[in-house]
């Protein structure tokens, strides 16, 4: 049975904004599912609907076979959500926060205490026990936020951009934590993120959405294979250099505006090695000081940019 099944979900706010436009997706039990999309794609609205905070305008959403709108109170016992901003109570201590959460979810006291000790150890929070929560750093607050949301032993944990603003070390520690949650606790993780590397590293399934609708869903490998064709990448020494060369190369390689990326031109190969030869020849003939030219496999970033491109050819 799928953990989450959403079919043709539409959400139109009372102010007229349509955030979701017939979105459908499936999340398998026990997997890490990542939702990618640009700002305003509808990710937060979808999380709000899936966590029973908002009702969809139309469409069907089920969790473990139960309608989340009609059976919201039952669904709520099985889910937990770590929102973009930490939601801990700074007027409570670390243990009070965790016990409060367990009481909200009616976890028996003895079980809650045992679980709290496990989670404190698992999330490395022992050394912070004696300090007030308000004095914690952002990273520790985030860890506590996740730990307390695990107090109810949720079947599905929603993580709404949990690593935003974190340095790389903290982010990697968070990745380990998410893997641990999935393997040690068997929790299904529904993750929204802006970091493609994060989705690539962690996810069993990735869904890319745009304008309130999913445009592709699959494993990271399947998404890479989706484009199938290799990519030609030309690296320049500066952005100005790229801009100078873009127009001439455009006529040779049939480039599109979206192929221009910072100090690089990245485009799908239309004519295999012929494109590589043509581009190299032009660059050498015109004595352009480029840094490199190569044929590479598409990264998740390439796929994301290709699919969310607003130039019209987005959804392949």
């Amino acid at each position, binding site marked *: 049975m799928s953990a989450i099944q959403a079919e043709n979900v539409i959400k139109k706010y009372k102010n007229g904004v349509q955030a979701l436009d017939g979105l459908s997706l499936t999340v398998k039990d026990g997997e890490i599912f990542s939702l990618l999309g640009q700002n305003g794609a509808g990710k937060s609205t979808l999380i709000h609907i899936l966590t029973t*905070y908002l009702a969809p305008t139309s469409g069907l959403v089920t969790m473990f076979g139960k309608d989340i709108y009609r059976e919201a109170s039952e669904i709520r016992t099985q889910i937990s959500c770590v929102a973009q901003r930490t939601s801990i109570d700074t007027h409570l201590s670390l243990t009070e926060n965790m016990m409060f959460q367990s009481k909200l979810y009616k976890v028996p006291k003895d079980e809650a205490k045992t679980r709290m000790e496990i989670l404190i150890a698992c999330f490395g929070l022992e050394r912070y026990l004696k300090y007030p929560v308000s004095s914690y750093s952002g990273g520790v607050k985030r860890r506590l936020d996740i730990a307390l949301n695990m107090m109810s032993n949720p079947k599905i944990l929603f993580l709404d951009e949990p690593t935003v603003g974190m340095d790389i070390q903290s982010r990697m520690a968070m990745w380990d934590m998410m893997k641990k949650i999935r393997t040690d606790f068997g929790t299904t993780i529904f993750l929204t993120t802006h970091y493609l590397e994060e989705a690539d590293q962690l996810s069993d399934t990735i869904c890319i959405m745009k304008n309130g609708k999913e445009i592709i869903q699959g494993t990271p490998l399947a998404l890479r294979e989706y484009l199938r064709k290799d990519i030609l990448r030309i690296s320049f020494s500066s952005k100005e250099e790229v801009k100078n060369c873009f127009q001439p190369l455009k006529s040779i390689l049939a480039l599109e505006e979206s192929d221009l990326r910072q100090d690089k031109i990245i485009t799908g190969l239309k004519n295999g090695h012929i494109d590589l030869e043509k581009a190299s020849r032009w660059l050498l003939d015109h004595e352009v000081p480029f840094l490199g030219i190569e044929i590479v496999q598409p990264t998740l970033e390439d796929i994301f940019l290709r699919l969310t491109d607003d130039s019209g050819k987005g959804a392949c």
Partner: protein
Amino acid sequence: MSVLTLLYRNIKWRFHNVFTIVITILQPMLWLVLYSAVAGQSMQGIGIENYTAFILPGLVVLVSFGACSSSGIMNYLMKADNSFYRVLIAPVKRSSIVLGQILEAVLCTFLEVAIMFIVSLFFSVRIASGYLGLLFIVLIVFMTAFFMSGLTYAISLCLPNEVIYETAMNTVVLPVFFLSTALFPGDKLSGGLAIAVNLNPFTHVINALRELIVQGNIVTKNILFVLTLLALMCCISFLWANRRLRKETSL
């Protein structure tokens, strides 16, 4: 059970933000200590023996308004730190969430009212109606605070931010306070002013409390009227608060 959990957490919030108790009791205390002492001598001329005892019921209503008003602020703070959302997606009845917050405001009101009564003892204020009267006072204070905290809860969910909320509360409280019998007897009033004062439900609450504190006679009819009025107001404010909370999730 969830109500007690939320109540405990809200009490912890209150004691963490103890200034909300100090600020809300400060003004009524100044009225009790300074104003009653200054105005008391003049009021003896119109037959009020102990003016501190006379204005105490009005100040009980005022202190209740302050405590309940600060309870509404809690919603803005909880929204800011996101715990509002965490509680809303927990398996807790909406009515329990509202009740947990209302009861905290009621307890805070009782704490502040108790302090006011203790201070007023130094001004020779005694509850003339004895223990039965005290029981009715407790009931009336409970229902008044319950009504007000339900009202402030609902208003806090209607208004966009705490600045507008505070301004609205301050705009409402003084006219309501002055258009009641909090500071003067209402029997000499006439015309439109008398109608306005009589239409103010707090006039009747204050009069009932005053009867119990000053006069010592428990007029069953008056007490029953006030309790019925408050019961009705409590139901309306609780239902409105509950409805507003449900609306939070139906954007």
